[in-house]
């Protein structure tokens, strides 16, 4: 078979395949008739054969490149991801995620310790001596927090508004996120009337969007930066633990415990747990680098990475739930006792969800 005869025979077929490819551009096979789809599949195999033939002969690089690109385009059109099974996402949340979480419980335990130990420590330290708080948080922020929970609305509207905006800016820029977030929580409770001047539902909807963006971003960053030997994750967990503990201790020391605790108890269940869960996922990445075990470094990273990203996704969903609770339930004017009961139930729910959901019956 000479090059000339090969071209004579096959050139037409290649052009036909090119035409079919152009017709279903973007891999939309619905544009082809059933007969054309069958033809496409047959031609794909024929062209693969032609390419293998040409690669084994020395008929010039131009021809190989030409046919290679044709087959690549066909390949991309023919082999796609498995069709979207969105019904599986519920399955993932109810079964897959909790199971993965339990399989990697150790990482969560370490992350939780990194988060809750400084949280409790700074809480106790600040409650004993509120001046310690000044070393961790701006005096202006502390003033604001205290004012939020003291229930005395002495400030004028304008001042409140500027205070709120500047506080939000600082939370964006420092990246020292959660403590600022805790302040925002409290701020909104009292001041949304002034800030937006709209009705209750409108303010709530607004804050829901803010909480989703803010909290989920922090959790996902906390996860991703675990790849740096876990250092990024540890920093996020420690700094947030310290910050939130500091605010909690300060508010309690000022004697506004009930307002504050009844506010955070409900959404805290999902929010604080999810931060630790995403931290655990970040530590999985870091640990894969430090202790690859019998695998190569890359293999260990890939193996754990797929599990870690699934756990982080679960944490992101938990944070979205937390954002809804935080925006719509936590600030609502309901007796504190009711909030404590509901909040307690939510903590139990989170524990049961992560601990029992998807357990195999033996």
């Amino acid at each position, binding site marked *: 078979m000479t*090059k*000339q005869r090969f*071209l*004579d025979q096959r*050139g037409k077929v*290649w*052009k036909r395949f*090119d035409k079919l490819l152009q017709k279903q551009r973007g891999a939309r096979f619905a544009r082809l008739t059933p007969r054309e789809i069958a033809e496409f599949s047959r031609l794909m195999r024929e062209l*693969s*054969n032609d390419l*293998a033939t040409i*690669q084994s002969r*020395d008929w*010039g*690089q*131009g021809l190989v*490149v030409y046919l*290679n*690109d044709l*087959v*690549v385009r066909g*390949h*991309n059109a023919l*082999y796609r*991801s498995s069709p979207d099974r969105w019904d599986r996402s519920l399955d993932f949340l109810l079964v897959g995620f909790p199971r993965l979480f339990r399989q990697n419980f150790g990482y969560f335990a370490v992350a939780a310790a990194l988060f809750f130990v400084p949280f409790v420590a700074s809480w106790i330290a600040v409650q004993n001596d509120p001046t310690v708080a000044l070393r961790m948080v701006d005096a202006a922020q502390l003033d604001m927090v205290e004012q939020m929970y003291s229930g005395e609305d002495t400030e004028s509207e304008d001042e409140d508004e500027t205070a709120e905006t500047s506080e939000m800016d600082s939370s*964006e*820029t420092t*990246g020292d996120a959660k403590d600022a977030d805790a302040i925002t929580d409290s701020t909104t409770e009292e001041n*949304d009337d002034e800030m*937006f001047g*709209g009705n209750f539902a*409108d*303010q*709530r*909807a*607004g*804050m*829901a*969007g*803010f909480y*989703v*963006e803010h909290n*989920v*971003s922090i959790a*996902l*960053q906390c*996860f*991703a930066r675990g*790849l*740096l030997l876990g250092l*990024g994750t540890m920093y996020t967990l420690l700094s947030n633990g310290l910050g939130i503990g500091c605010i909690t201790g300060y508010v309690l020391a000022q004697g506004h415990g009930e307002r504050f605790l009844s506010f955070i108890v409900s959404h805290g269940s999902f929010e604080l747990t999810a931060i630790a869960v995403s931290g655990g996922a970040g530590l999985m*990445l870091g640990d894969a680098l430090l202790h690859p075990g019998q695998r190569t470094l890359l293999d260990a*990273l*890939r193996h754990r*990475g*797929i599990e870690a*990203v*699934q756990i*982080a*996704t679960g944490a992101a969903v938990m944070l979205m739930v937390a954002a809804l609770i935080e925006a719509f339930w936590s600030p609502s004017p309901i007796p504190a006792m009711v909030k404590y009961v509901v909040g307690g139930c939510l903590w139990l729910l989170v524990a049961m969800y992560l601990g029992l959901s998807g357990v195999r019956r033996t």
Partner: protein
Amino acid sequence: MALSLDLSIETPENVVLRHQLAGPAYRLAAYAIDLSFMFLVFIGAAIALSFIGGHTPGLVFGTMNLVKFFLEWGYTITFEYFWNGRTPGKYLCGLRVMHENGQPLSWWGALIRNLIRMADNIPLAVIYGSLVGQVFDYAPIYGIGLLSIWFTPKMQRLGDLVARTVVVHERRTALPRDPVIYDHIEPLSRDEMNGVSPPSDTLALIDQFLARRPVLTYARGHELAGDLAEGLAERLQYTGDRKHLKRYPMAFLARVYVTFAKAPTEQEAELLGSRESRTASQPMVEVAL
């Protein structure tokens, strides 16, 4: 360091496909385009909402936060998953993300490589966080990701390594050109030689040699061609002007090629030509790697 831009993948049809890996320059260009798209969408949403939501400022505030959240985290994931590994920026630069084994990007693959972006973009996010972070937490100057692209054989950033993905050019940008000499040289005449025709791999060698002729100095090309030309002349029992052959061995090789291979045929020229025009119509950012 990456030594080859080629990635070979064996398909289910048992044929080896070659993809051209995309270097950091193209990828940064694509990312810069994406970033400006994100910026435009953000501004556009802000303007649109300011008209629509005058009476519900809370809702506007919340929606803008959701838009920002989507642009930060969802934009690349959604586009890459639903558009077969492309974002608008990648599409304009002719790039595509796929798995190392040639499979199209999976859902978790898209998620991993785009979440770990936050580790790839670190130095900038840390250094410029307070300036650029007002709009987004990063801008298209990756530190760790860039180093990773430079030092891995398949030019992958950390997110690519964990997700087992590569970024490839959808089409080759550099086309091999056929030597012009074929169109102008006379074939050998029958009475100058015997009837033996050279083996096809010798002809292919001549073709490739002449195609790469411009990368050699004249003297070196002359030297390399000389031996082959004389060997061929022996074999063909060439009776023409031997002195001329010695002086212009490359011309002789071209004559041999034209006589026996008649390349490129009209058909081939047509196929390759149509391909050339199609590639030319693709918007390509010319960046030296």
